[in-house]
């Protein structure tokens, strides 16, 4: 077990940890008070200095994102808290909402203050009905406690928070899709430019941040960026919630510093592989990341750059563990089917390509595969996600990164576990 | 001359005329059928049994066709030309003996329309007249192709008449007579007594010249469809055209008969004394004559469908530079032989 003291999830095992009174009792909203005494620019600078990178998947520095917001415009600005957590293998935000909602809210208020917005949204995925109800209660509490509403804590800063329920669309986790959905349209991602920081919700400057990102803010304000940077690797520091699921003995969310070895995560924190089986493969960052073989998984550290080096990504840190008994072709089909179901259908490659992948994989699993299929899958994933050169970053061929999110896992499945696919094909070929 | 003799002559003339005309008809069919067979075809076989009535159908067709006389022609000559062509052909046949002497009702009837003692000269004279028909047809048509055909014809005739005449001269030297019956008698005996064996070179020259004389392939430069449309008869149609046609075949028949007479012993059957068999012998002699003539007619057709046409310069070179010298040499050799042996 790690000796790291949890920060975000320090109090989650306490009773009634979601209440305002509890939160205040453990020093909650003290950061807000500090922030209200600072200028917005200073807050942004401070967050920039902390090197806080987005926890939603892309890992874009939060402070930098805020600084894109034009400060002189007439238009209102908006902050949206992205709680549309739907990445397979990720369930950290739900935990945060359930256990430390005020921490999130405090982070939201800080961020709103920093970018100068007066209306903030929490976009929570529709399935989280309980969490939605809880948040309603929490927001009401915050209004009562004058943490929201007019003249927060005696300052002249006003902020309203609206909780908006999604309705079951993975793509609404993408920021422009989310904005569209918030506008009451279908969640079709928008083409960029213009970026949401310039024209987002209702064509106004908008910042979209993940729940966990925002949760970090009070602590950064309280303890300073230097403290934050001291946790984990310098380029992407901070505490991080890792979700471990799949074939492990004790799945769950674990807060550890960035850069913890994946091995420790699986074998120490999550209690090792179920039934004493051998590790076969791991998704390090949700189903959109490229899958790792056991060998790779045992040697890699969980931070943005280490994972990028082996051509995968930290993403939302949703670790899915698969043991030796897992049929990789079926698993690949499962993932592909997920993406086909969730593809919004706007861009040609994604709409048609995902469905095609599912058809081919279904064919392989049902025994009608042929030896061309493997190359074809690789090519189709290239055509959807456009993985031409990993070293130069992503080469998406679609409006949003969904295309890449399909291409990475499916491609890595085929590349790294080609034998499993070949077995399917050769079995059937020998029969016919 | 008594009236009976006159009647006999008339009957003979009629028989010969009818025979020639029938043969002409048969020839038109034979030409088409044989050519078809040589080309792996069947040829006309629809009119009558095996197509035998085809010539009749052709004849009717020719008669029924519109007789077109172009406006620019010299009409009398235009009308005369086909006649000029066919009459000599028929007349030539008058002196050809087509069998031995027939004895009927106590009379000896020579199977020959006219037995004249200068037969050969007569032949040479008449064959020269034939060309007038062609030349006149070509000229009177007032059209370029017929004119060219006619001119070619006269040039061709001059070139080959000479060689032909010289070839016959060698026969005359052997026979010592211009009378055709004498020439036949001279050839009587066995096979080798036929002039074709005695005078092979003359035979060859004669045959080649005859082809040229009758305007048959490979020497049909006067009609030469590919170059001259139809040659001298381009402007002719209907029955007048048919007359040219008939004349050509009549000429062929005459030429064949003449060849047979001069070189194959005429009606004579080798190693057989026809006179001893009486009138049966006469019949056999006629048959022999017909068979021999038919053979030549067949060869006429055969050659036509085998060899391509000569070019004009080739024709002239062959006539003047090959045939004429050869014929002269042949006469010298024959004369020399006769001088030494007799």
């Amino acid at each position, binding site marked *: 077990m790690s000796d790291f003291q949890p920060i975000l999830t320090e109090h989650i095992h306490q009773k009634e940890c979601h209440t305002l009174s509890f939160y205040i009792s453990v020093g909650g909203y003290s950061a807000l008070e500090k922030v209200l005494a600072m200028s917005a620019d200073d807050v942004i600078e401070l967050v920039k200095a902390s090197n806080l990178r987005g926890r939603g998947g892309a890992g874009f520095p939060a402070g930098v994102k805020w600084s894109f917001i034009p400060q002189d415009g007439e238009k209102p600005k908006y902050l949206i808290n992205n709680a549309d957590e739907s990445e397979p293998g990720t369930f950290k935000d739900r935990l945060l909402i359930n256990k430390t909602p005020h921490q999130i809210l405090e982070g939201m208020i800080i961020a709103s203050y920093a970018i100068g917005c007066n209306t903030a949204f929490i976009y929570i995925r529709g399935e989280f009905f309980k969490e939605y109800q809880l948040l309603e209660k929490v927001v009401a509490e915050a209004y009562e406690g004058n943490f929201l509403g007019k003249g927060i804590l005696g300052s002249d800063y006003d902020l309203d928070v609206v909780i908006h329920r999604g309705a079951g669309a993975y793509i609404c986790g993408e920021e422009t899709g989310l904005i569209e959905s918030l506008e009451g349209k279908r969640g079709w991602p928008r083409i960029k430019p213009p970026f949401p920081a310039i024209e987002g919700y209702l064509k106004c400057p908008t910042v979209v941040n993940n729940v966990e990102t925002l949760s970090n803010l009070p602590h950064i304000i309280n303890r300073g960026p230097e403290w934050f940077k001291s946790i984990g690797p310098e380029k992407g520091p901070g505490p991080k919630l890792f979700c471990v699921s799949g074939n492990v003995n004790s799945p769950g969310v674990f807060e550890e510093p960035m850069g913890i070895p994946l091995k420790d995560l699986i074998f120490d924190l999550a209690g090792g592989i179920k039934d004493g089986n051998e590790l076969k493969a791991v998704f390090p960052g949700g189903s959109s990341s490229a899958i790792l073989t056991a060998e790779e998984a045992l040697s890699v550290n969980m931070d943005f750059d280490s994972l990028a080096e082996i051509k995968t990504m930290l993403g939302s840190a949703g670790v899915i563990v698969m043991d030796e008994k897992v049929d990789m072709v079926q698993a690949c089909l499962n993932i592909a089917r997920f993406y086909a179901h969730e593809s919004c259908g706007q861009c040609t490659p994604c709409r048609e390509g995902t469905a095609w992948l599912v058809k081919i994989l279904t064919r392989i699993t049902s025994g009608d595969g042929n030896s061309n299929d493997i190359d074809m899958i690789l090519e189709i994933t290239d055509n959807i996600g456009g993985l031409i050169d990993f070293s130069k970053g992503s080469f998406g061929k679609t409006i949003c990164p969904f295309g890449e999110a399909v291409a990475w896992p499916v491609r890595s499945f085929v590349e790294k576990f080609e034998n499993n696919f070949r077995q399917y094909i050769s079995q059937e070929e020998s029969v016919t | 001359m008594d009236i009976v003799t006159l009647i006999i002559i008339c009957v003979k003339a009629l028989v010969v005329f009818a025979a020639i005309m029938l043969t002409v008809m048969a020839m038109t069919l034979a030409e088409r059928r044989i050519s078809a067979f040589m080309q*792996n075809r069947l040829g006309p*076989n629809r009119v009558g049994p095996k197509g035998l009535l085809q010539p009749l159908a052709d004849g009717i067709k020719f008669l029924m066709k519109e007789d077109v006389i172009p406006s620019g022609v010299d009409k009398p000559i235009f009308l005369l030309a086909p006649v000029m062509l066919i009459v000599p052909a028929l007349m030539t046949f008058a002196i050809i003996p087509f069998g031995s002497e027939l004895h009927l009702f106590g009379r000896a009837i020579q199977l020959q329309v006219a037995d004249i003692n200068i037969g050969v000269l007569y032949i040479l004279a008449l064959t020269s007249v034939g060309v007038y028909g062609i030349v006149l047809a070509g000229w009177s048509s007032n059209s370029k192709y017929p004119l060219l055909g006619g001119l070619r014809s006269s040039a061709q005739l001059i070139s080959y008449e000479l060689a032909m005449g010289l070839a016959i001269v060698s026969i005359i030297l052997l026979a010592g007579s211009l009378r055709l019956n004498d020439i036949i008698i001279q050839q009587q005996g066995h096979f080798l007594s036929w002039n074709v064996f005695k005078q092979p070179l003359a035979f060859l020259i004669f045959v080649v010249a005859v082809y040229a004389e009758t305007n048959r392939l490979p020497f049909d430069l006067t009609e030469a469809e590919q170059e001259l449309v139809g040659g001298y008869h381009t402007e002719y149609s209907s029955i007048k055209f048919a007359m040219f046609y008939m004349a050509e075949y009549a000429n062929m028949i005459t030429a064949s008969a003449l060849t047979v007479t001069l070189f194959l012993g005429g009606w004579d059957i080798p190693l057989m004394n026809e006179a001893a068999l009486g009138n049966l012998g006469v019949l056999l002699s006629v048959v022999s004559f017909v068979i021999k003539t038919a053979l030549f007619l067949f060869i006429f057709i055969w050659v036509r469908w*085998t060899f391509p046409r000569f070019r004009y310069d080739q024709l002239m070179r062959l006539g003047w530079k090959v045939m004429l010298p050869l014929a002269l040499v042949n006469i010298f050799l024959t004369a020399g032989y006769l001088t030494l042996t007799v």
Partner: protein
Amino acid sequence: MATIVTSYEPTFWDKLYFPALLRGLMVTLRHFFQKKVTIQYPDAKYIPPEGYRGLHRLNKYPDGRIRCVACEMCAAACPSGCIHIVPGAPPWEDGKERYPVSFDIDLLRCIFCGFCEMACPEQAIELTEIYDFSNSSREGLWINKDGLLEVYEMTKDENYYMKKSHEADLTSG
């Protein structure tokens, strides 16, 4: 590259020509006795080879409906412009969208190149082996849809001329 051509020097016998002439005569004589190729046409019919391009027909499906969808590809491919189609909606409901209201071919213009057959995406138009369709009027050689379908009925089972081949000896003279 230059080709060296050596001229042929004729021998004495060649110069005589007679052997060559005789050889020629023998050739024609040989043919004179060979089997004849003539077919007694109206009595016996020539059976065209596979792929012969004769009169057109419009094919039907086994259930009897016309295959043509009036796409006018044949008309577009036709180099002589002899196909005239008026398209329309089909009289039945079965997913096929188009249907030829009229389909005429001007056989006098047709050059029987078979492009229409190749252009047809439905294998609807096809050239049959029928070659003897003469008529004494221009109108008679303007074949319409019914006519084309009739041709299909005539030719669908076996080679149109096959039946007659039993009856006549093809090469009899």
